[in-house]
C-alpha cells in the first residue's frame, strides 16, 4: 500500500504530460459544421484536395449538432476561442451578429467576387455581409411513394382525395394500417407551408410577429381537419414515427426536407418528390421556408490565418466544386454559373427540388425567430390536442411571441443598485471571514495535531474546490447582472432585478411543485426498488450473478438512445406499452398527448434508468452487516420485518443516506430525461421541471443573467433541503 503515493506521483506526471495545450496556429483551420454524413464525406474530400494544393495548411472539420454548435460557438467565441469557420443554417447568423462574434465578410470579399452568388446566398443584416452560403435549401417538399401514389397531388383537394383512398385498414381489425400522408406535424416548422398556403406569414419587416391573423386561424383549422375530419394522417406523429411509417411503405406521402430524401431510397422505397400542393381557396402554393447554409468567420481570425481562411472559402465555392457537391448530395448550389447548369435540371429530384425552392420563402434570420418558434409551439400543439380553438391559439401565439421578444430584448440597467449590491456582496464576504476567523485560527493551530486527518482529507477537497469555486462565484455575480443578448460582452451588476423576475414568473410555483413531485416519486421508487432487489440478490440463490449483471444494464447503456426508445414505447398506436395494455383488454393511453400522462411517462423512464444505481449501492451496503446479527435475531425468534426494521435498515442507513441526498440533488436538476422523452416539454410546454424550464425559457433566449439567478434559486432550495435532511438523518455523525 506504500504504492499509493507513487501512483499519485505518476498520475500527476501524467497530468502534465497530457497538459500541453495547443496554441492557435495560422496554418491550422478548424471548421465546425452541421452537415449530414454524406455532405461531411464530400467536404472531407474537398479538404483533402485543398490541403494537397496548399501543403502548408491543415484543415480540420468537426461535426456539431445545430443547437450545440450555436451555443458552443457562442461560449467559445466570447472567450476568444473556437473554430475559425462555422458552417450552418442562415438563421444562426442573427445571434452571432448581435453578440459580435463573426466577421463582416463584405470587408474581406470584394463585390466582384460576391456578384457571382445567388442573392439568397449572401446573408446581409444591419448593412453587412455575415455569411456566404454554398447551399440553398433545407426546404420541405412532398415526398411520395411511387408505388402507392402514381401522380402526386397538385392541390389540397387532390391531396385529401388521394389521402382518403390510401388511408385504409387492411386487415379489418379496426386499426389503420396505411396512411395517406405522414410527417412531423407536431413541430411548427413543418406547419409553416400550410400557413403560407393560406397566405399567412410569421413575422413582418419590422421584426414584429404576425401570428394572430385570419390566415393563421385558417391554417390551423386546415391542419386539424386533415387529422380529425378527413382522417388521412395518424393521431400522433413525431419525426421518427413519420419516418418509420414512410420507410415501411405504410404511408403514401410524406413531408420532409432535402436532408432526408436519400435515406428513403436507401430504405428501398421507390420515391419521388414534388412541390407541396396549392390551397384551392386562396390559390396559393404551400410554401416551405428556404434556408441557405454557409460559412461565417470567427471574429478572432486575423492576419495570415484570415488569408488562409479566405483561400479556403474561395476554393470550396468555385462553380465546379459547388456543382459536384450538388450532384452528389442532392442539394442546391449558390453560384449563378452552377445554379443554372443543365446537369442539375436533368436530375428529376433536383429539378423538383428547384421548383420547390423557387416557390419557397427565405427563413428570416433575425434572432426574434427563436422567440416566435417557442411561442408557436405550445398553442399549436394545444389545437392539435383539442384543448384550444384555432382563434384562441392564434391570439395566444401572438401574445407569447411578443412577451418572449420583449424578454429577449430586455435591457435592464440600474447602476446605483448595482453599486449597492457590489458593496453588500463585499461586506458579506468580509463579515463571513470575520465570523470564521476563530475557526481559521483554530485550524492553523490544529494543523499539526490533526495532520493525519488533514493529509487524508485535503487532496479530495482541494481538487473539488479548485474546480467549482470560480464557476460558482462567477454565477453568483452573473445572477446580479444584466447579461443578456443586448449585454453579452458588456454586462454590469444591476442588483436584484433578475431575482425579482424569477419570483414574479407565474409558472415558477406550479413547476416547482411538479419538480418536487418528480423528485420525490423518482427517489421513492429508486430506493425502494433498489433496496428490494438488492435484498433478493443478497440471498445468493443459484443464478444470482446473472440477474445481478442483467439488472444493471439500464445504468450501463447510454441514456440518450434508451430515452428515445422509451419515447417510442409510449407512442399511442405503435408503442409497446399500449399494445400490452391492449392485450390485457385495458384501454390504450395517449401517453405523450396530455400533460399528466406525459409527465408520468417521463417519471417511468427515469425510474427505470435510476433503480440499478441504488441497487448497487444497497448491495454494497448490505455487506457491512455481520451475519451474526441475523443469527442472534433468529434465536430470539424475530420475524422478517423485525429483522428488516431493526437490523437491515439502521445498518444500511449510513451508506444509503448520502446516496439518497445526492440522488435528490441529481434528480432535481436532471435535464436530459425530461427533455428527451417529452421532446423538450411537450405537449404545450406542460412537461417541465424547473431546470428544463430555465433552460428553455432563459438559456435558449440568451438571458444568461436571468438563468443565473434562477440557478441560484435552485441552488438555495437544494441547500435548504440538504442541510435539513442531513440534520434530520444525522448522516454526518457516525453510528458507532
Amino acid at each position, binding site marked *: 500500500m506504500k504504492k499509493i503515493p507513487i501512483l499519485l506521483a505518476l*498520475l500527476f506526471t501524467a497530468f502534465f504530460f497530457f497538459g500541453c495545450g495547443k496554441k492557435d496556429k495560422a496554418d491550422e483551420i478548424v471548421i465546425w459544421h452541421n452537415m449530414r454524413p454524406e455532405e461531411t464525406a464530400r467536404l472531407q474530400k474537398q479538404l483533402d484536395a485543398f490541403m494537397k494544393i496548399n501543403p502548408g495548411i491543415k484543415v480540420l472539420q468537426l461535426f456539431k449538432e445545430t443547437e450545440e454548435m450555436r451555443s458552443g460557438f457562442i461560449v467559445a467565441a466570447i472567450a476568444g476561442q473556437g473554430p475559425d469557420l462555422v458552417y450552418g443554417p442562415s438563421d444562426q447568423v442573427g445571434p452571432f451578429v448581435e453578440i459580435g462574434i463573426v466577421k463582416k465578410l463584405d470587408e474581406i470579399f470584394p463585390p466582384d467576387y460576391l456578384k457571382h452568388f445567388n442573392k439568397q446566398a449572401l446573408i446581409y443584416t444591419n448593412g453587412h455581409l455575415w455569411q456566404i452560403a454554398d447551399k440553398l435549401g433545407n426546404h420541405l417538399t412532398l415526398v411520395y411513394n411511387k408505388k402507392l401514389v402514381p401522380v402526386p397531388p397538385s392541390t389540397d383537394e387532390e391531396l385529401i382525395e388521394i389521402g382518403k383512398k390510401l388511408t385504409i385498414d387492411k386487415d379489418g381489425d379496426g386499426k389503420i394500417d396505411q396512411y395517406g400522408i405522414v410527417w412531423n406535424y407536431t413541430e411548427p416548422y413543418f406547419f409553416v407551408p400550410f400557413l403560407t398556403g393560406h397566405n399567412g406569414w410569421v413575422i413582418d419587416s419590422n421584426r414584429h410577429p404576425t401570428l394572430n391573423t385570419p390566415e393563421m386561424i385558417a391554417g390551423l383549422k386546415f391542419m386539424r381537419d386533415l387529422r380529425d375530419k378527413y382522417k388521412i394522417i395518424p393521431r400522433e406523429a413525431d419525426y421518427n414515427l413519420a419516418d418509420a411509417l414512410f420507410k415501411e411503405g405504410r404511408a403514401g406521402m410524406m413531408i420532409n426536407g432535402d436532408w432526408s430524401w436519400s435515406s428513403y431510397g436507401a430504405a428501398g422505397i421507390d420515391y419521388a418528390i414534388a412541390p407541396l400542393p396549392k390551397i384551392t381557396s386562396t390559390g396559393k402554393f404551400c410554401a416551405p421556408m428556404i434556408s441557405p447554409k454557409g460559412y461565417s468567420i470567427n471574429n478572432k481570425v486575423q492576419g495570415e490565418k484570415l488569408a488562409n481562411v479566405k483561400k479556403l472559402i474561395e476554393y470550396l465555392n468555385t462553380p465546379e466544386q459547388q456543382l459536384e457537391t450538388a450532384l452528389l448530395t442532392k442539394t442546391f448550389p449558390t453560384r449563378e454559373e452552377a445554379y443554372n447548369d443543365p446537369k442539375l435540371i436533368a436530375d428529376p429530384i433536383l429539378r423538383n427540388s428547384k421548383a420547390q425552392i423557387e416557390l419557397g420563402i427565405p427563413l428570416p434570420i433575425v434572432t426574434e425567430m427563436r422567440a416566435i418558434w417557442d411561442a408557436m409551439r405550445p398553442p399549436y400543439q394545444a389545437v392539435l390536442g383539442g384543448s384550444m380553438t384555432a382563434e384562441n391559439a392564434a391570439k395566444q401565439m401572438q401574445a407569447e411571441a411578443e412577451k418572449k421578444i420583449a424578454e429577449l430584448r430586455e435591457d435592464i440597467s440600474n447602476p446605483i443598485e448595482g453599486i449597492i449590491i457590489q458593496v453588500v456582496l463585499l461586506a458579506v464576504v468580509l463579515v463571513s471571514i470575520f465570523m470564521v476567523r476563530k475557526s481559521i485560527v483554530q485550524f492553523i493551530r490544529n494543523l499539526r495535531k490533526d495532520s493525519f486527518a488533514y493529509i487524508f482529507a485535503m487532496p479530495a477537497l482541494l481538487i473539488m474546490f479548485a474546480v467549482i469555486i470560480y464557476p460558482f462565484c462567477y454565477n453568483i455575480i452573473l445572477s446580479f447582472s444584466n447579461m443578456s443578448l443586448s449585454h453579452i460582452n458588456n454586462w454590469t451588476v444591476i442588483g436584484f432585478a433578475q431575482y425579482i423576475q424569477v419570483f414574479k414568473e407565474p409558472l415558477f410555483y406550479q413547476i416547482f411543485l411538479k419538480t418536487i413531485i418528480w423528485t420525490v416519486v423518482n427517489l421513492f421508487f429508486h430506493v425502494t426498488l433498489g433496496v428490494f432487489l438488492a435484498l433478493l440478490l443478497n440471498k445468493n440463490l443459484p443464478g444470482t450473478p446473472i440477474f445481478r*449483471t442483467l439488472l444493471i444494464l439500464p445504468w450501463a447503456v*447510454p441514456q440518450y438512445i434508451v430515452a428515445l426508445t422509451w419515447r417510442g414505447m409510449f407512442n399511442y398506436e405503435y408503442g409497446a406499452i399500449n399494445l400490452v395494455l391492449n392485450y390485457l383488454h385495458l384501454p390504450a393511453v395517449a401517453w405523450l398527448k396530455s400533460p399528466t400522462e406525459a409527465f408520468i411517462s417521463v417519471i417511468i423512464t427515469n425510474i427505470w434508468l435510476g433503480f440499478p444505481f441504488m441497487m448497487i449501492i444497497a448491495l454494497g451496503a448490505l455487506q457491512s452487516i455481520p451475519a451474526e446479527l441475523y443469527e442472534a435475531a433468529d434465536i430470539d425468534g424475530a420475524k422478517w420485518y423485525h429483522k428488516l426494521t431493526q437490523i437491515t435498515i439502521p445498518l444500511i442507513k449510513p451508506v444509503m443516506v448520502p446516496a439518497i441526498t445526492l440522488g435528490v440533488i441529481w434528480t432535481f436538476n436532471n435535464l436530459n430525461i425530461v427533455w428527451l422523452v417529452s421532446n423538450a416539454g411537450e405537449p404545450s410546454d406542460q412537461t417541465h421541471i424547473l431546470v428544463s424550464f430555465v433552460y428553455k425559457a432563459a438559456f435558449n433566449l440568451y438571458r444568461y443573467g436571468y438563468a443565473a439567478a434562477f440557478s441560484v434559486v435552485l441552488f438555495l432550495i437544494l*441547500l435548504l433541503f440538504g442541510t435539513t435532511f442531513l440534520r434530520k438523518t444525522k448522516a454526518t455523525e457516525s453510528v*458507532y
Partner: protein
Amino acid sequence: MNTKKYFINALTYLVLILFTLIALYPIINVFTISIRPGDKLLSTSLAIIPDNWTLRQYAELFVKRPFMLWIMNSAIISATVTLTGVALASTAGYALSRFQFVGKQSSMLALLTTQMFPATMLLLPMYIMLIKLHLINSYLGIIIIYSATALPFCVWQMKGYYDTIPYSLEESARIDGCNKWQAFYKIILPLATPALVITALFSFMTAWSEYIVAAQILQDTSLYTLPIGLKSFESNLSTEWGLYAAASLIVSVPVVVLFVVLSKWLVSGLTLGSVKG
C-alpha cells in the same frame, strides 16, 4: 418449513425474472435498432429480429469509423479518473469518518453543494477558467473536472461505509502496535472493499458517459472520447440510428465487464464477523 422456503425461493426468482425483463426490454429494442436496415429509430413492428436484419452497422463502426480510437481515449480518461477517485475518496472518506477536526462539518456540506448548481450554468465559467489555465484540448483539464464531479459522491459514500465499521477494530490494531496509517490500510480498507467497488464503478461511469464538458473542451478529433464520437452519428434530422444503437451497446460492454469483475468484491467482501473471528 421446507415447502415454505421453496415457495419463497420460487417467488424470489419470479420477481427477479420480472424485473430483469423490464430492465431488458428497452435494451432489446436498442439491439433491434442496431440490426435493422434503413436507419429507423422506430418501427410499427414489434419483432425483435427485424426483416432483412444486418450486422453491417457493427462492421462499419470498426472498419470505417475511428471507434477504436474513441474507446482507447475514453479508457485512458476513465481509468485515470477511477484511480484518482478511489485514491482520494478512500482517504478523504476515512478522515471524515474517523477524525474530529476544524472544518469537518462544513466541508461535508460543501461537498454536497458542489453538486447543486445546474451543470449547464457552470459550463461557460468553467470553459473560461480552463482557457486561462491552458487546459483546453487536453486530458488534464477533463480529468480534473471529471474527478471533481465524481468525488463528492464517492467521498460521502466511503465515509458512510466507514461509519458502519466499529472503532474497536482500529483500537485493537493500535494496541497490537499498528500506527494510524497501518490501521487504515491493513484493517479498515480491506473491510471497505464493497464501498471501494462502488466508488470505482461510479468514477468510471462519470468519465465514461460524460458528454457536455467533453464536447466543449476537446476540439481535436484525435482526442475524442466515446460520447462525442457517438454524438457524431446524430445529425439534426438524419441520425444514423443503426450505428448509434450498435455503438451504444458496445459502449456498455466495458461497464458490464467491469461490474462483473468487481462484483466479486462487491458482494463477497470480507465480512466483519470473519475479522472479529
